[in-house]
């Protein structure tokens, strides 16, 4: 390539680093420190945010705060969030698991590729766009906000997460299980329902829990779909606007009064600890059930 002639090798020269080598080593050490620093930075930011939420939020907690309604509690919002996320899970989990089954048991060819692409695109949709879609689909048609509309939006957010997680677990089910069932003359659907699904059940459940952890904190869709409510009244009817934690935090955060801010920190503390605990537990269980499934 280049016309440069490399310096002739002198076997008698001493084996000490020349200036150039010292510079290269120093740069390499600098790069190592920079990479380590970046990792420390990320962990530091996590610690600052989490400790900030704990520090401000823990003092707001009391039994009354958790059970009573507004102005001094978030009881109805907790119940509302639980309802919205539960209905979303009931919609997203079966469809997501069936899609994963389709892709891993029957899927090949062009249709399967389209489905995979659809899941990826769905996963990349901004949650506010999903909120706008469900607003037009349900809220505009019914002319009222509802917790159910929120559930549908959250279900769209959860669907690709459940499907992807289930697919990864199903791929770990040893093919010897399928082959053994085939050799015994068991039909496809019996194999799927009685052999493959049960052996992957633990992993499927934990990836659903991970999707729940993701959906519980989603605010943008709920801001459009279930944000005009009476925060003092608990409701079990999902076809009216349900109080919920994310929009409560969003609303209180804009308020100038220090009492509201402390409530927002309290609600944030509850939400963050729920999400952290569920996703950490789910990850640990998932790692274990992966090993178990693959065995």
């Amino acid at each position, binding site marked *: 390539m280049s016309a440069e002639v490399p310096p002739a090798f002198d076997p008698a020269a001493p084996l000490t680093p020349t200036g150039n080598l010292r510079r290269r080593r120093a740069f390499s050490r600098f790069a190592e420190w920079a990479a380590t620093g970046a990792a420390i930075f990320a962990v530091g930011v*996590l610690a600052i945010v989490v400790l900030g939420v704990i520090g401000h939020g823990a003092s707001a907690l009391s039994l009354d705060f958790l059970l009573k309604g507004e102005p001094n509690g978030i009881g109805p919002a907790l119940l509302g969030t639980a309802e919205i996320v539960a209905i979303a899970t009931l919609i997203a989990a079966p469809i997501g698991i069936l*899609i994963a089954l389709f892709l891993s048991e029957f899927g090949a060819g062009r249709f399967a590729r389209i489905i995979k692409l659809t899941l990826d695109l769905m996963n990349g949709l901004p949650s506010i*766009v999903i909120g706008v879609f469900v607003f037009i689909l349900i809220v505009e048609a019914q002319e009222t906000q509802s917790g159910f509309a929120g559930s549908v939006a959250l279900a769209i957010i959860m669907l690709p997460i459940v499907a992807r997680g289930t697919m990864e677990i199903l791929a770990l089910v040893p093919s010897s299980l399928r082959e053994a069932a085939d050799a015994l003359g068991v039909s496809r659907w019996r194999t799927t329902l009685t052999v493959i699904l049960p052996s992957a059940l633990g992993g499927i459940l934990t990836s659903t829990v991970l999707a729940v952890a993701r959906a519980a904190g989603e605010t943008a869709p709920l801001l459009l779909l279930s944000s005009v409510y009476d925060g003092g009244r608990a409701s079990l009817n999902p076809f009216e606007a349900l109080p919920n934690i*994310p929009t409560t935090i969003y609303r209180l955060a804009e308020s100038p009064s220090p009492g509201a801010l402390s409530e927002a920190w309290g609600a944030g503390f509850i939400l963050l600890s729920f999400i952290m605990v569920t996703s950490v537990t789910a990850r640990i269980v998932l790692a274990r059930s992966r090993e178990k499934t693959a065995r």
Partner: protein
Amino acid sequence: MSTAANPAPGVGVPAARDRRRDRRRSLDRLGDVLLYGVCALAALIAVAVLIGLAYLIVHGASPAISKFGLGFLTSTEWQPSFSVFGAGTVLFGTAVSSFFALLLGAPIAIAIGLYLSLLAPKGLRIVISPLVEMLAAIPSVILGFWGLIVLAPFVQKHIEPWLHNNFGFIPLFGPPQTTGSSVFTASLILTIMIVPIIASISRDLFLAVPRDVQDGASALGATRWEVVRGVVLPSTFSGVVAASILGLGRALGEAIAVAQVIGAGEKINVSLFETGDTLAARIANQFPGAITAMHKASLYYLGVILLVISLVANLCAQWIGKRFDYQRAVAK
């Protein structure tokens, strides 16, 4: 199938056995078809949701699309009371805030990926990897709230004056404003959101680089950095770019956290320390209060733009990442 091939003597009456077998066979055929049908139906639902989503949003935006046309993209007028709308300001805010988030976030995230895959001792790696992913699990509303109460005042008091005093000759670093709600703060929050995404993907990419190629470079006298620069980064380049585009897509579409800290500005400002607005944040801020049909249709129009941007970003990431997936399949 084979159960009846060699009828053993004394097992049931032949006619009854045949009936049982036939019933079982037709049940099996039915079950297979049913299971396939249900699964395919679920898959079709996913496709239908995506198509329906695109159709309904474009349909909802059609009054604004037909009134403002493509001029909507460049017009900077947004006056709901006069029914005049244009996306220029928010497009600018979206581009600037996401660009700076990527500029700050991508190098940090790639460095974290390198640390986790090549430098960290195993014990530290299994602790730090999940912690970095935890950062992605923080809900945006909490991050935005923290940004508003804790980060924005800090940025306004310390970081912005410092940047202004030392680099004030660059128009980007104008005089700090009073609240700390600014495009700059929004970029910092977005940086925090995209770092874990890019970091965890690039960690997996770097882990898949074959060990013997790296050892070969070391044996030729390359320092650790030169191994990274000469072997690891070039062989994973397309994957890292795809990961960055995914992170960028996430930043472009983030509504809540940005709406909380960007200050809902109405003008295009060169200085990062002024307020601004993004596509998603504008929808989140104004949607609940939009009364006139044209205001709503214009917000839908912003949604259409956001949808197109996110689809394009994801398709790009897919297309660029495909090359990498192929390499990984070969490497395994």
